[in-house]
């Protein structure tokens, strides 16, 4: 793999990819944590905070342990193998985000409604049976634990893959951590679900970043030399961004033309 000594040009490359790395981890974490916050709030306001917050804490410990264990383990792989594996995984994973975001933006898939999700969570929490285990309200604990764990797994996946492929696990984790703090503070201030967060726009941006990074690294992993090295990452983002907007426009036109009726992803 070509990695010349750092010069002024490489410093520019490094800062571009580093900024994108932190941005990707931050945005992915923010959007997933908004969804986790809705679940936690829905349970906490109805059934009390003690068991709910213990569930949140337990899930956070599991997620942090996963990053601490898997991140350094991945770095034991040779960089070419790592970038191929991580790139291919990111590509498959990122395309899912991008595909769903395009379907939502073009009107083929319903947008996620945090307010409705909150009401649903609150209603379920109100009718669920009381069961005490280990001194905890078991429903509150398990729902908060599962909610944070499942939403957080995607963040962990992104942090580990982004961070390890670029050798900057700490920065990726810091970007994700900053988003968690921001969402929690916003949630406490708002005292409700953050329904005004433009989730689909953020998911669109994250999907675009994941797919672009995945494409870039996977190609490097099979021996491709990108023209302009890491600067060509911006070209990949630009190409896939333009393609995505073109697809959104085409799908909107198709939907408005009434063909096909009732199609769902």
């Amino acid at each position, binding site marked *: 793999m070509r990695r010349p000594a750092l010069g002024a040009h490489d410093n520019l490359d490094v800062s571009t990819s580093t900024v994108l790395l932190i941005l990707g981890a931050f945005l992915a974490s923010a959007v997933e944590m908004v969804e986790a916050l809705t679940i936690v709030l829905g349970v906490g306001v109805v059934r009390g905070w003690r068991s709910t917050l213990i569930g949140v804490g337990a899930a956070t410990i599991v997620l942090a342990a996963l990053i601490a264990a898997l991140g350094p383990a991945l770095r034991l792989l040779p960089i070419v193998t790592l970038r191929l594996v991580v790139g291919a995984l990111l590509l498959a994973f990122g395309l899912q985000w991008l595909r769903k975001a395009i379907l939502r933006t073009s009107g083929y898939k319903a947008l996620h409604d945090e307010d409705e999700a909150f009401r649903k969570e609150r209603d379920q929490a109100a009718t669920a049976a009381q069961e005490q285990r280990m001194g905890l309200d078991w429903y509150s604990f398990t729902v908060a634990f599962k909610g944070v764990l499942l939403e957080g797994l995607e963040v962990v996946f992104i942090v580990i893959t982004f961070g390890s492929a670029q050798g900057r696990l700490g920065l990726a984790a810091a970007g994700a951590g900053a988003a968690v703090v921001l969402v929690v503070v916003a949630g406490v201030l708002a005292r409700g679900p953050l329904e005004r967060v433009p989730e689909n726009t953020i998911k669109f941006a994250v999907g675009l970043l994941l797919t672009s990074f995945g494409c870039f690294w996977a*190609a490097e992993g*099979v021996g491709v030399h990108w023209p302009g090295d890491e600067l*060509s990452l911006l070209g990949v983002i630009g190409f896939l961004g333009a393609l995505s907007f073109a697809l959104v426009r085409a799908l909107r036109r198709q939907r408005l033309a009434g063909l096909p009726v009732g199609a769902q992803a």
Partner: protein
Amino acid sequence: MRYLRSFGRFWWNFIVGDDWRVAAGIAFALGVTSLFTHGGIDAWWLLPLAVALVLAGSLWRATHRSA
């Protein structure tokens, strides 16, 4: 056994998702890119092109499924 099956299904849904053809198309494109690069052709353009085709194809299938 049931636990293993659900564990496998979870990771399949997590990585591959709704359309397995996307992951298969990417794997195929990576294989072809590898053949090109090992044959001395620096095919940096192939994977972005494959991503574009795979994405467009998957969206077409998703929006025409119940047509």
